[in-house]
């Protein structure tokens, strides 16, 4: 920046502080990945020797992890379907139509991001408890959809805004019917955004803790709730391997989104929810 002619010393100090902050952000993640392969899964860094024991233990007989993983995957898949369908319709209504009370609808859709999750979780608990639905994967997925839909809507709105409507008009002028236009023009253009929305919905649900905690029962426990329970009450060194797996899932998901951006068609702004300018988040997952 031209005007802020920082001195060399000032620049150096800023640089060193910033690098330390980056280490602060990255270190816990790197540490988990490395120690999950170390012989002493709860301690010394770098590990003295390497092993795959903790990963093997995850799938040993009597391990409670496979069931938790299966439940989390099921719930995340359901959430993805719900929130992409709801999100796509909402995005179409918000971007492509003359919607009365548009800003009220938009505000309602984004509200779950700023309302404390404990309040949402408590409300859902009060809703599902009398219905005897605690512990039902469907109930947990319905709860997660409340959090995943705003993210899907933001991504899909950005996607739809990035599609040139003149392409559809051109197709119409050349005699294409509405279904043909949707199938041949709109959907292929929107596909990368839809996939990104699906990926982020999946991750949101897969990592979600609080709603799962409130809606789980003794025999339906999602992966994050299981990790939390182990950290708070038990000692199970294989939890490090689970944590590493959760990191790997998130990295694969982000990698896929990055690939979509690279190969996606031209203007694909805002595949990451953080890029759309609306504060992403709510309680971080």
């Amino acid at each position, binding site marked *: 920046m031209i005007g802020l002619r920082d001195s060399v010393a000032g620049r150096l100090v800023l640089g060193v502080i910033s690098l330390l902050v980056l280490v602060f952000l990255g270190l816990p993640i790197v540490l988990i990945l490395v120690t999950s392969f170390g012989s002493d899964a709860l301690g010394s860094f770098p590990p003295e020797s390497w092993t795959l024991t903790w990963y093997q233990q995850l799938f040993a007989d009597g391990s409670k992890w496979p069931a938790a993983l299966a439940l989390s995957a099921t719930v995340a898949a359901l959430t993805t379907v719900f929130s992409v369908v709801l999100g796509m*319709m909402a995005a179409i209504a918000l971007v492509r139509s003359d919607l009365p009370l548009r800003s009220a609808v938009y505000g309602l859709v984004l509200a779950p991001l700023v309302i404390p999750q404990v309040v949402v979780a408590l409300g859902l608990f009060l809703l599902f408890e009398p219905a005897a639905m605690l512990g039902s994967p469907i109930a947990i997925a319905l709860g997660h959809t409340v959090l995943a839909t705003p993210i899907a809507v933001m991504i899909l709105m950005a996607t739809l805004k990035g599609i040139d409507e003149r392409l559809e008009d051109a197709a119409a002028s050349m005699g294409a019917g509405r279904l043909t236009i949707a199938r041949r023009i709109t959907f292929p253009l929107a596909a990368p955004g839809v996939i990104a929305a699906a990926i982020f919905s999946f991750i949101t649900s897969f990592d979600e803790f609080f709603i799962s905690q409130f809606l789980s029962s003794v025999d339906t426990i999602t992966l994050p709730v299981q990790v939390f329970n182990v950290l708070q009450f038990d000692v199970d060194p294989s939890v490090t391997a689970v944590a590493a797996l959760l990191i790997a899932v998130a990295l694969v998901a982000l990698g896929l989104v990055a690939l979509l951006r690279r190969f996606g068609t031209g203007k694909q702004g805002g595949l990451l929810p*953080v890029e759309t300018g609306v504060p992403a988040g709510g309680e971080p997952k």
Partner: protein
Amino acid sequence: MAVLAPPPEPVVAAAATGGWRRRLSGRRTRFGLLNATPVVVYLLVLFVYPIFSTLLLSLKDEDGGFTLHWYADALSGTSLDILLITLRISAETSAISLVVGFLLAYWITRLRPIWAGLVMLVVVVPHFISALVRTYGWIILLGDHGLVNETLVALHVPGAPFQLLYNELGVVIGTTSVMLPYTVLLLYAVMRGVDRGLIAAAASMGAGRLVTFFRVYLPLVAPGLVNAGILSFILCLGYYLTPALMGGPKQTMVASLIDEQVMKNNQWNGASALGVILLLLTFAGLLSLRLVKSVSEAAKNRGGA
């Protein structure tokens, strides 16, 4: 004239109602309503209604009559202490995130684009990794024999090893690491929007480094700073994971208390009152955000910086 200018009022009224009817019957409008209905119904049933029932429950006594005593309970004794602790930890966390986030975001704006992209990756990737997992990483790092203490001991820092876990320091470290990426993203977006011409202009007219920074740059990014600070404060208020895992009994936050009331004590009314208090604090934060926004826009419109 009489024909060209008919009595104004009936026409306006007719146009208004006709307008409404026309708007609601327009094809694009019907299309919008059709597509918006599912999400609106969904959120009304699974988001608005549950929160509303929380509110009702917090105002009901054992016999179903109206009472405020759950709020009196929530605002006295241990519960009040927990509320104050929550406010304090949230304030500390958002203040540290803001200062550290400001430095990092400012540094990134001055990097070459390729480096800025790489550094932003280091900021964004943790944002999408489960906070639970990152918290676990910190628990390993900050333990008595964790990497941080081992390093401090090896460097012969007096007093090491320190107690870094199960106290307020641990909670603030953990929560800050969770909130920081979010703060940096918000601040970076604001800083990138700063018109560099203004800064060059200040410098060209002889303003020194500090004057340029405090009189030109800081006022330009101030609304963004307030925005990021309030948002991270709001997010901290209801935060559960990290304080529950990295704090001791003295760092219990409201979310943990709500969890305990529901899961252990079966005390739904009390938990609801706490939830509503949390909600009101959040609304207060959002409202002040609105206020700051309108004030800064008014300042901009007056042409004052």
